[in-house]
C-alpha cells in the first residue's frame, strides 16, 4: 500500500516536473511572446518566429496567446512568479498601467539611439504609450473610433450625409428612430464613447492629469441629452450596457442608423449583416474628427533576461511582421511606410475597407480618451458606473457627475 502511494506520488511528480520544467526554466537564449487573442493568425506568427530565429542560432521564441480578459491576470501572475513574457502585447491603456507599476522596460533610450526605428511610426500613435514622457511600447496594430452609418436608413430619413456636430447626431438619431429601429449606437468600453464629450469641448482631466475637469454645465447638459435620447430610444440602450458582441450585432441587424466604434467592429458586423456593402455602409469621422484610440502595443518586460533579443524581435515584428499582419487582418499598423503600401493595395482590392482604414490615419492629432494615466482602469472604474447610471435613467446627471468627480479625485490622489 505504502509503496503504491509512493509510486503514485513519484509518478505524478515525474510527470509534473517533466512537463513543468520547460515552462518554468528559461533557456539561455529564449524569449517568450505574449499576444492578445490573435490565435487566428497562428500560421503568420509561427512564420515570423521561424524567420526571426533562422539567422539567430541558439535563439528560441515561445509564443503564448491569451484572450483579452485573461491577459492582465496572466501577466500579473507571471510577474509574481518571476517569469513574465519578454515581449507583451497589450490593448489600450493597460501598457501604461504596467509601465507605472515598473513592469515594463523604458524604450526611450533605445528609440533615441535608433531613430530609424522611432521614425517608422506615426508619432501620434507612438506617443499613446508615453508614460511620464518615456515611451514603453511600440504600435503593433492601431485602431481608433469612427462613425459607421446605414445609408439606406439615412436616405429614408431624408438625411443627406453624416452628422457634422453633436446636435446633428442627436437630431439624425431621433429622425431615424421608430419601432424596432434606433438612431445611434456607440461602443462604451475603455473610453470609446469619449468623443461624444470631446466634441462638446468637455475634457475629463486637466492637462497635467491632476484633477477632474468634467463636472461642468456643458457636460451635465450633454449627459442629460444623451440620457433623454436613450430614454426616447433614439440612442440604443445597448450603447451603455453592451460591450462588443451586442452593439455590433445590433448594428449588423440593420435597424440602427449610426455605430460609433473603432475599425475592427466593421469585420464583426460585416460578418453578421447581409446588408453591409460599399453602397449601403457609410464611413465618416465623428464630428470634429475626434476619436478614441484603442490600439495594440508591444512592450518588453523589465524582468526580461534577454532584453536586447526582445528588442530585436520587437523591431522585426513592427517592420517585416507588420507588413504581413496588415494584409492578413486588413488593418493599419502604425508603421507609416507599411500602412501606405497596404492601403494602396486595398484601395483597389477592397475600397470599403480602404475607406475605413484611411480614417484611422487621419486627424491623428485629435485623439482623445487616451490620458497617459498609470491607473486608467481605476479612474474608469470611478467614472463610468456613475455615468452609466445617468445614461440608463437611474440617476440625474448633476449629482452623478458630482459623485463621479469626488471619486475620480480620490483615485487621482491615491495614484
Amino acid at each position: 500500500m505504502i509503496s503504491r502511494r509512493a509510486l503514485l506520488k513519484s509518478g505524478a511528480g515525474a510527470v509534473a516536473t517533466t512537463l513543468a520544467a520547460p515552462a518554468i526554466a528559461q533557456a539561455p537564449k529564449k524569449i517568450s511572446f505574449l499576444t492578445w487573442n490573435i490565435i487566428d493568425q497562428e500560421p503568420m506568427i509561427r512564420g515570423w518566429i521561424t524567420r526571426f530565429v533562422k539567422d539567430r542560432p541558439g535563439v528560441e521564441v515561445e509564443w503564448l496567446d491569451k484572450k483579452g480578459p485573461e491577459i492582465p491576470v496572466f501577466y500579473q501572475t507571471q510577474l509574481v512568479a518571476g517569469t513574465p513574457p519578454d515581449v507583451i502585447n497589450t490593448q489600450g491603456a493597460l501598457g501604461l498601467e504596467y509601465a507605472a507599476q515598473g513592469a515594463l522596460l523604458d524604450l526611450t533610450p533605445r528609440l533615441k539611439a535608433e531613430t530609424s526605428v522611432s521614425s517608422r511610426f506615426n508619432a501620434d500613435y507612438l506617443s499613446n504609450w508615453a508614460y511620464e514622457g518615456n515611451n514603453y511600447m511600440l504600435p503593433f496594430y492601431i485602431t481608433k473610433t469612427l462613425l459607421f452609418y446605414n445609408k439606406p436608413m439615412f436616405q429614408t430619413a431624408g438625411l443627406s450625409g453624416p452628422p457634422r456636430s453633436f446636435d446633428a447626431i442627436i437630431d439624425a438619431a431621433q429622425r431615424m428612430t421608430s419601432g424596432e429601429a434606433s438612431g445611434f449606437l456607440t461602443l462604451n468600453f475603455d473610453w470609446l464613447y469619449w468623443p461624444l464629450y470631446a466634441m462638446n469641448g468637455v475634457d475629463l482631466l486637466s492637462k497635467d492629469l491632476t484633477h477632474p475637469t468634467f463636472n461642468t454645465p456643458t457636460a451635465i447638459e450633454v449627459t442629460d441629452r444623451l440620457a433623454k435620447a436613450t430614454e426616447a430610444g433614439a440612442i440604443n440602450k445597448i450603447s451603455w450596457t453592451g460591450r462588443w458582441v451586442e452593439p455590433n450585432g445590433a448594428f449588423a441587424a440593420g435597424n440602427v442608423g449610426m455605430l460609433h466604434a473603432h475599425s475592427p467592429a466593421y469585420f464583426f458586423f460585416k460578418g453578421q449583416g447581409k446588408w453591409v456593402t460599399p453602397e449601403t455602409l457609410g464611413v465618416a469621422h465623428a464630428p470634429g474628427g475626434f476619436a478614441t484610440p484603442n490600439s495594440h502595443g508591444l512592450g518588453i518586460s523589465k524582468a526580461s533576461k534577454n532584453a536586447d533579443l526582445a528588442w530585436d524581435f520587437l523591431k522585426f515584428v513592427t517592420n517585416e511582421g507588420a507588413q504581413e499582419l496588415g494584409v492578413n487582418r486588413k488593418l493599419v499598423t502604425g508603421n507609416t511606410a507599411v500602412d501606405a503600401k497596404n492601403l494602396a493595395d486595398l484601395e483597389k482590392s477592397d475600397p470599403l475597407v480602404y475607406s475605413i482604414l484611411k480614417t484611422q490615419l487621419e486627424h491623428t492629432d485629435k485623439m482623445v480618451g487616451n490620458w497617459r494615466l498609470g491607473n486608467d482602469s481605476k479612474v474608469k472604474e470611478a467614472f463610468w458606473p456613475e455615468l452609466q447610471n445617468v445614461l440608463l435613467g437611474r440617476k440625474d446627471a448633476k449629482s452623478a457627475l458630482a459623485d463621479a468627480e469626488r471619486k475620480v479625485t480620490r483615485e487621482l490622489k491615491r495614484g
Partner: protein
Amino acid sequence: MIPKIGRRGAWWRKKRTRELAIVACFLLPSLAIFFLYRVLPLGWNLLLSVQYWSPLKPPRWAGLDHYQEMLLYDDVFWQSLKNTLIFIGASPIAIALALGIALLLNSDLKSAAVYRSIVFLSYPLMTVAVGIIWRWMYDERGGIINFALRESGVVAKPIPFLQSFEWALPSVIVAEVWQVLGFYMIIILTGLQSIPQHLYEAASIDGAPHWAQFGRITLPMLRPSLFLCAVVGILNSFTSFDLVYIMTNGGPGHATELLITYIYKSGFGQTKFDYAAALTVVQFILLLALTYLANRAAGGNAGSLERQ
C-alpha cells in the same frame, strides 16, 4: 517506526503510541494539503490585507487603510456584498423547492428513481458550460426563454435578461439554482428516507393530520439535511465564480458582481492584490458568521457533518 515503538514498555502503551503514530501519519497528507491550500493562504491574506503590496514593489505597512477604503468609499464593495446576500437569500427558496421535489419523489418506485437522476443530472455539469448554456437560453434573439415569452404573449419586446440591470442578477440566480437543485434534493431525500417509519405510524394512530405530521416529524427530523443544504447554499453564493464570470462577468455595471468576482477583478484585473486580500478576509468573516447562524437555526448540533 515499528521498531522504535517496540522498545516502549507496557503492551497497552505500545499500542497507544502506535495508534497515535498511525493516526498522525494517516492524517498527514490531507492535513498538509489543507494547510497549504486553506490555512496558510488565509493567514497570508490576513497579512496582505494590512500591507501595500504589488508584485514589483517591497511591501509597506498599511494598517487598516484597505478596510477603511472598502467600508467607507467603495460602492462596488457594498454592491457586491448586497448581491452576494441576495444570492444567499435565494437559497432558501431553492431548498424549499428541492424539499417539494424530494417529497414528491420520496418513494421507491422505479419512475421516482429515474426522476431523481434527471433532477440531479445538472449537478455534475461543468459550470462554465452551464453558464454558456444559460447565456444562450436567455439570449435576446435566439434564446428559448424570450421565444417562449413572446409566443405566449407575455412580453412584446424580448427581454435582454443578462444586459438589463433589473434582470441580470435574478437570471444568474435561476441558473445557479437550476444547477444546485439536484444536490439539495438528494440530500433532503435521504434525510426523508432516514426518518423511521414508526414515527408516522404512531402519529397516524394518534390521528394527526398529514400537515401536522409534516410539521412535527418531517421538518424536525430533516434539520441536519436542511442545515447541510443551507451551508452548501451559502458556500455556493460565495464561490459561484465560474457562472458569473461566464454569464455576465459581473455586469451590466456591477449588477451581478459578487464578492468573489470583485476579489478576482481587483486582485488580478486592477492589480490591487492587497485590497483583494482585505476583501477576502471580510468575505471569510461573513461566511463564518452566516454558517454559525445556519448552525444555530438547525438546532445547534454542530452540523450534520460532525458527530462524535
